[in-house]
């Protein structure tokens, strides 16, 4: 052996890691799946590829995608929020109850209709802040707190509206959900902008990176000087705020607030996030991936409808396909979905 072999340089050799190079492309992992689905859709029904149908698919997913946006950020921070599916119903229901007449199942306060949208968003923020209070101040498990809130908030909505659907919606509240901007539904623009903002914030702002750090190892994040509680709190508030906004969009799209608005959505929300590569353990995943997850689920839904699957069976098949997609995502990403 010539010369002195230095342990120093030898020891520092990075372990070769094939996964590493793949990691860069994990974000794009779902793109082929989306292309396949588009192809399948086109083969099943020529209507699929028409502009109207595609716009329709996107618009139908706008509320879901906002919830997925919210849930993904919360999951990356290492927390849970199951109550989003109730917030999407309660926030608009409460806001409308305060402004519409008693005859239309209002609460009798008859506040000016201009207040409806601010109240709706404020309700969302307050719900998020309350969840944060229970989770951070009282150190309760996020899972159980928000599961409780899911039930409480749904109950509040039914109590306040007497279990009725609200139909008498002021035009200002309807606007966002059914306006058209530059040839596309406003809700699609809103989602696109919010996702772009989210991707930018999580990728390029210190506060956004702090969310990943907290989800990855909260003690280490604290040691690095991140105000962990404050960041998590903010994330929970923004999450619920997004759910309230989704509630507005849904109200506008259907022209009413159903007593069960959002009920059962949370499974789809989690499925989309997880298919999109967001880890339930925190610290891992991207919003772009989550958005792809939403698209996969939206396309599956549309294809099943176009394919003429009978209404009685569609739910079972839809659920089954989502489970299959989760398995596939697990196999293709090669990593455990912990």
């Amino acid at each position, binding site marked *: *052996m010539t010369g002195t072999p230095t342990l*120093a340089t030898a020891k520092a050799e990075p*372990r070769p890691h094939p996964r590493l190079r793949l990691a860069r492309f994990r974000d794009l992992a779902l793109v082929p799946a989306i292309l396949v689905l588009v192809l399948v859709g086109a083969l099943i029904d020529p209507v699929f590829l028409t502009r109207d149908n595609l716009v329709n698919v996107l618009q139908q997913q706008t509320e879901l995608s906002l919830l997925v946006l919210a849930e993904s950020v919360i999951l990356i921070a290492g927390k849970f929020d199951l109550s989003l599916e109730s917030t999407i119903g309660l926030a608009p229901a409460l806001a409308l109850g305060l402004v519409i007449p008693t005859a239309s199942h209002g609460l009798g306060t008859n506040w000016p209709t201009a207040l409806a949208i601010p109240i709706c968003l404020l309700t969302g923020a307050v719900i998020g802040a309350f969840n944060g209070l229970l989770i951070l101040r009282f150190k309760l498990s996020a899972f159980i707190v928000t599961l409780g809130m899911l039930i409480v908030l749904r109950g509040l909505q039914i109590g306040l509206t007497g279990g009725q659907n609200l139909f008498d919606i002021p035009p200002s509240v309807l606007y966002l959900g059914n306006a058209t901007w530059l040839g596309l539904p406003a809700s699609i623009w809103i989602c696109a902008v919010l996702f772009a903002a989210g991707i930018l914030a999580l990728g*390029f702002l210190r506060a956004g*990176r*702090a969310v990943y750090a907290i989800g990855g190892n909260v003690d280490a*994040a*604290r040691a*690095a000087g991140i105000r962990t509680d404050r960041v998590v709190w903010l994330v929970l508030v923004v999450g619920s705020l997004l759910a309230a906004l989704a509630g507005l969009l849904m109200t506008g799209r259907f022209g009413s607030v159903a007593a069960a608005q959002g009920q059962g959505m949370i499974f789809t929300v989690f499925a989309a996030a997880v298919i999109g590569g967001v880890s339930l353990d925190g610290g891992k995943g991207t919003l772009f991936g989550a958005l792809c997850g939403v698209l996969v689920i939206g396309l599956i839904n549309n294809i099943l409808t176009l394919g003429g699957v009978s209404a009685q069976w569609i739910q079972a098949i839809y659920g089954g396909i989502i489970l299959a997609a989760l398995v596939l995502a697990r196999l293709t990403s090669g990593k455990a979905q912990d």
Partner: protein
Amino acid sequence: MTAVAAEHITKRYGATTALDDAGVSLRSGETHALVGRNGAGKSTLVSILTGLQRADSGRVTFDGEPAPPLADRDAWRQRVACVYQKSTIIPTLTVGENLFLNRQQSRRGLIDWHGLRRRAGEVLGRYGVAIDPGMVAGDLTVEQTQLVEIARALSFGAKFIILDEPTARLDAAAIERLFERMRDLRAAGVTFLFISHHLQEVYEVCQRVTVFRDAKHVLTAGVDDLPHDELVRAMTGDAPVTAAAARSSAGDGPVVLDVRGLTLADRFDDVSLEVRAGEMVGLIGSGSSGKNALAQTIAGLLKADAGTVTIAGTTPKPGSVPAALDAGLGYLPQDRHTEGLVPLLSVAENATMTIGKRLGPAGIALPARRREAAVAMIEEYDIRTSGPEQPVNGLSGGNAQKVVLARALASDPKALVLVSPTAGVDVRSKQSLLTAVVRAAAGGTGVLIVSDELDDVRDCDRVLVMFHGRVVHHAGKGWDDATLIGAVEGVREEKGFAE
């Protein structure tokens, strides 16, 4: 001039008093050692000096000024940088981002990833760590993680740096480079608080030393005025020295661990070794020698590309930890925090995890028997805890370590693989741990000790040396240190080794 002082600090955790009116005072520009047995309160003082925890009473000053409020993390970070005993690297982020966590430089309000990666490369380069900053930190080895951690603490530009057992997971070469960096920084006026259980390191880099014992300050002295034996006595009080267990050299029992032609690409190549019942074999090598990967492969954490591992006559399914354990293997992992313990369970539950069958019939674990077994272990291994019910995440680093070792030995394994068994363990406990290992060997267990430290393999019948993935040297009883160190560093025997 006093750079940093902690005075009359008291800190309690429930019934445990971690610090009792203790303190240290550091002169500007000195490297000050803090030593004491496991659980003496060293890391607790570190968390108070870095503003992670509030003392129950007492005060901390920097350059004579009172410490900033706990909430003002930025102010703390300007005053002190720290390598904590527990890793604070975030496994899901890249190395580069970990280095600049929460201080990523921005351009026009957005993080400049390109610049961050370049600067991360510079920081690592300055410290001589050749790791790609784009790597995900979770994929690093234990040593690499520690190097990143150290590079980060040194890069803050703080005037005061705390290193809590930085050397416990490093090999000799990396330690030497750390000391060089520390001397450079000291020349530039940086003050260090240095914690280690390797007392020779204290003499090597420190000027003064403070000793804690049982949560109290015992003495502070210049290292030149305090010979090694006196230092040990200050740390341990009058505790009696445990006699090393006597063991007759291993005869020719059956082979309990048989490794044949084991190969894993880029880690080790065609390694064969045998351990007989009752025999103790040492396996030493530097960080890049592949010895840790070999141990992980034997335990089933990694899957070999070629070759076989046979444990007590059976060949467990490769790459399966349960299969290896079922075959009769006991294993002490290198990374105790992630592979070793269930943090929220009690000491008793963690320690008795491998002997469930003996705690009661039909899968039932009788609480009384578990307690009894745990109390015996706490006694035997000298584990400092408030009781068997204490959750393990409240133990000091060295004591948590002892729980893992106690557990590995408790199941009466046929073959036992121990990786760096005494890292982070104090001088006195080291002795009792190794004694327990010798006793296990005397009882017929075949032991393989994988370590960087010659002291860990003193009791071994044979020592193998690995270098760059191959076993390059076999030494029988009566080996001498110089030859082994030469082999570890890759100096071929036939060319001779001079020092």
